């Protein structure tokens, strides 16, 4: 009973949301391993449970039962707090995501702003983890990771700014409702390519996974973390991938809306949102299985000299269209 935050007899909407997220993150790891396995002509996990379906729980249980090794030179308080910071920030972003019409946990009118603020704070967990471990590899990993996150936030914010200027709202619900007319991927097709690159970098995924480049830095900023703290980082990483997939769906793919304005029920809408997000997650895995890692200077050059100018140019172009045709959203 003490598990539920409000002391109700039933789990509240918030608890269901958090529980659902953690569960889906667990199955995402399995989905990634299975998809990558079939792309590489392997079988993938198939021992634990039927068709390997219980593999994530076996992994989680293993991490839960192992001993959490804390390096003797580490700053222990920060070392242990940073995974909690990262995971709670990764889960906090879900508060403003509408799963169906009117089912966001907190339907605030500045949802987009809230989400961007929360995702910016995510850098701190990485930075604290890398610094407090007092290890060269973790420190280099966290430096790379924070530089990457800070750099790629600019094109990310630019894309979001363009969408906000078109829809005239900072509320996710209204951005989705706007797309009853047209899914924004159609007018913003070039920009959506920029967005897909940016979310790969923002979630530290291949081909931009330099912070945890296995050959150089073992596991990046979380190399010294083990057992449960490591599991928290792992959950946070996949949580941010899931969040970015859902965000892509909301901003570009019409969110929970059915195509062609077909009527739907709340349950069906949630299902549609999940299906679209899964398609984006498949794209994440596909890219990881296909492309080799870029160098760090290439990573920075792509951001500052390619994506950001394209974002600025498209921002000016879109605003010009809105002003020239007198269709600024009122």
């Amino acid at each position, binding site marked *: 009973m003490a598990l539920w935050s409000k002391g109700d007899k039933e789990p509240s909407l918030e608890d269901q949301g958090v529980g659902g997220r953690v569960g889906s993150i667990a199955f995402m790891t399995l989905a990634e391993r299975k998809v990558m396995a079939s792309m590489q002509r392997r079988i993938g996990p198939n021992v634990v449970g039927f068709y390997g379906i219980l593999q994530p729980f076996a992994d989680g249980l293993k991490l839960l039962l192992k001993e959490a090794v804390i390096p003797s030179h580490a700053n222990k308080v920060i070392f242990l707090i940073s995974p909690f910071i990262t995971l709670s920030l990764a889960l906090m972003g879900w508060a403003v995501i509408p799963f169906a019409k009117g089912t966001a946990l907190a339907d605030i009118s500045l949802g987009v702003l809230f989400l961007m603020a929360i995702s910016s704070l995510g850098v701190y967990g990485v930075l604290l983890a890398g610094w407090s471990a007092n290890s060269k590899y973790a420190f280099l990993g966290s430096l790379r990771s924070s530089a990457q996150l800070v750099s790629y936030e600019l094109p990310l914010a630019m894309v979001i700014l363009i969408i906000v200027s*078109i829809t005239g709202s900072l509320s996710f619900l209204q951005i989705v409702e*706007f797309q*009853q*007319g*047209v899914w*924004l991927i*159609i*007018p*913003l*097709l*070039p920009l959506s390519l920029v967005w897909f690159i940016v979310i790969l970098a923002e979630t530290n995924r291949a081909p931009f996974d330099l912070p945890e480049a296995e050959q150089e830095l073992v596991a990046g900023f979380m190399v010294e973390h083990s057992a449960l703290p490591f599991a928290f980082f792992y959950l946070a990483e996949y949580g941010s991938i899931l969040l970015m997939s859902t965000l892509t769906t909301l901003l570009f793919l019409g969110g929970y809306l059915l195509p062609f304005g077909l009527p739907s029920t709340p349950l069906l809408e949630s299902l549609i949102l999940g299906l679209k997000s899964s398609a984006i997650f498949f794209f994440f895995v596909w890219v990881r299985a296909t492309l080799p890692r870029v160098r760090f200077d290439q990573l920075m050059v792509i951001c500052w000299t390619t994506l950001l100018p394209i974002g600025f140019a498209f921002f000016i172009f879109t605003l010009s*269209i809105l002003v020239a*045709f007198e*269709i600024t*959203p*009122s």
Partner: protein
Amino acid sequence: MLLYFNSYNKFMMASTPKTQDLPRPGGFPSIQYKRNLPRRGPSGLTLLTGITAISALGFYWMTQTILESRELKREKNWSRIHLIPMLQAEFDRDTYRRTQASLQREAEIMKDVPDWKVGESVYNSKRYVPPSVFVLPEK
């Protein structure tokens, strides 16, 4: 020694015709260093045209959507503006009913007090002041 070599060179020059290493007549064929990869997929021009066309169509639909949402917003605003007289009338009716009930209640409570004027204004003015306090029924 120098003299010897010089004389040797003179001897060689005299015996063989003067030649230089040159490409054969017509030149060498160009060396193919590119990989033989088939050119797959649509050309760049096709892609650019296609994406521009899709975007243009999307911007047209986007324009229609913005215009429609603007119209819906205007309709909502005007429907509220037109509802104001009705809501005001309802409010006035409700205020009058509550005021009458309040006067009755006052007369009932203060019936034993001599020289009590029911409904006398507490202000030193004859101007109408709407009541700021309502007595709501107890649940």
